[in-house]
């Protein structure tokens, strides 16, 4: 900026407030979690009845020998492995559709789709729980009315979606895909707009079908965008908290915990164990950071940072 360029310290002054806020409320807590994960931090330590002690790797070895940890990790991994491809596939198909619609129709469809993305996680969760409610939910009613060759039938009447892990995570899958695909669709659409129309036209003249054109032209050109979307989706879906917390019935159903909820439960459920909770939180953070590094490298390679 011309007006304040004079001093070489100016940019640092402008960055100072954000650096302080991020340092104190994002970076310092991360350091603290690493510290707490090596301590016996519980209720007696918080209230000052007993001193905090360093316990070395005790929290981690307790975690690693806990079958509930492995169950929650498995749930998080399987959930991400199912939801990420589904979100990307749905989003890409809708993005391709948006690209072929007229400008008004395209704007209408993408606006309504983005409303799903903007819907608060809390509202989306209670809506989907209501849609699948055993008494009065429209989903069970519709499934019971469906012909049996479509998987419908009277046994769906009064079916509870939230009481056992598989139905709960099926519901969660639909919910998270519903909220996640519009961002993918709109991003893919923005990418498609950068591809010159002549490329597609000449491919069509050469007799390429839609499938071939996608894999030969669209996909290679949009590969960097797909990579970023893939990594972002993994980070979001692996760490999904609010929706999973509400759909699995808040805390208490231990066989339905994902890694994030398990960490939260160990930290806050009475008697609280902030040490073990922090060890779990650190494991979650490290997993996400590894994926984040991939995301940052992909962004840098794309020239997002100039």
């Amino acid at each position, binding site marked *: 900026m011309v007006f304040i360029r004079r001093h070489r310290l100016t940019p640092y002054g*402008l960055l100072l407030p954000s650096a302080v*806020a991020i340092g104190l409320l994002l970076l310092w807590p991360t350091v603290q979690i690493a510290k707490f994960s090596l301590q016996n931090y519980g209720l007696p330590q918080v209230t000052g009845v007993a001193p905090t002690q360093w316990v070395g790797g005790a929290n981690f070895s307790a975690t690693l020998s806990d079958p509930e940890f492995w169950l929650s990790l498995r749930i998080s991994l399987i959930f991400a492995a199912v939801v990420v491809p589904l979100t990307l596939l749905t989003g890409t198909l809708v993005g391709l559709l948006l690209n072929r619609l007229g400008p008004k129709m395209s704007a209408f469809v993408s606006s309504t789709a983005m*409303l799903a993305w*903007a*819907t608060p996680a809390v509202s989306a969760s209670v809506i989907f729980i209501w849609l699948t409610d055993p008494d009065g939910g*429209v989903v069970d009613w519709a499934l019971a009315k469906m012909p049996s060759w479509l998987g419908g039938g009277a046994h769906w009447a009064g079916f509870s979606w939230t009481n056992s892990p598989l139905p709960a995570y099926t519901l969660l899958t639909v919910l998270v895909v519903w909220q996640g695909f519009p961002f993918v669709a709109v991003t893919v659409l923005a990418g498609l707009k950068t591809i010159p129309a002549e490329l597609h036209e000449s491919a069509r003249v050469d007799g390429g079908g839609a499938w071939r054109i996608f894999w030969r032209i669209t996909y290679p050109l949009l590969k960097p965008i797909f990579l970023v979307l893939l990594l972002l989706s993994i980070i979001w879906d692996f760490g999904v908290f609010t929706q999973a917390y509400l759909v699995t019935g808040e805390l208490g159903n231990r066989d339905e915990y994902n890694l994030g909820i398990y960490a*939260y439960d160990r*930290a806050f459920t009475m008697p609280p164990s902030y040490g073990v909770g922090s060890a779990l*939180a*650190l494991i979650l953070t490290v997993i996400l950071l590894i994926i984040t590094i991939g995301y940052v490298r992909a962004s840098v390679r794309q020239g997002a940072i100039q």
Partner: protein
Amino acid sequence: MRLRSRTARRAGLNALGVLVALVTMFPILWMVSTAFKPASEIYSLTPHPLPAHPTLGNFRSVIDGKVIGLPYWDFLKNSLFVTLSSVVASMLIALLAAIAVARFKFRFRTSYLIMLLIVQMLPQQAMVIALFLDFRSLGLLDNLVGLILVYTAFSLPVTIWMLRNFVAAVPREMEEAAAIDGAGPMRIFWRIMLPLVAPGLVATSVFAFIFAWNEFIFALTFLGTDSAKYTLPIYVTYFYGRGTVDWGSIMASSTLFTIPVLVFFLIVQRRMTSGLMAGAVKG
């Protein structure tokens, strides 16, 4: 013949587009419709898409606070106070940082941008453990100020990135021309930079608004005991798991909570999504 097949294809594509829009909107429409239904229709054996006898009863009981004992307005006030304060703070801080990274060349500039990308991904359910203990010793639990601090800081990585693109889009020549004409730094900022970045500020503040308005984990953890301090997301889930599940009230409260943010979003939709995607798509 050729023309007809093209019209047919266009109609088919449009029908598909409408279908996508309907399927996507269905849960939101069902929420609103349920909110207007009397209990007899909500628990009817054959659910209908529209209420046969629309009623404001659910909204009335939510707004009067018949269910929780506290009226809706109290929670709306809490949510508005927290959200607006953190949006204003976030915009001020982010604009300064955005000007620094968009207009200056300095050491650590790239590192700062990369740091923002990384901290943006830190899981909130992990951070909340340490922040809970910090805020406990600082007396910031059950205190809306604590939430304002957290929402401001957690929105910064994205708001700085979004604003950076909007600041960078302001032509440097305009500032230089004004400087040659003898305008001082403050004048250039108020007369040129601010008006040109204003649309970007609006789009970015809607992002910060949605983030703070929707936020659940911190509110859930920090506002444990004092229900008078609850923000709207906690209020909506409060009905739920209280023994009797009253879907009419839940959908009415959830409608009152959701619709403002959706309306807000629609107003600036275009600009906001392009700003959000600036990181994902090279723009």
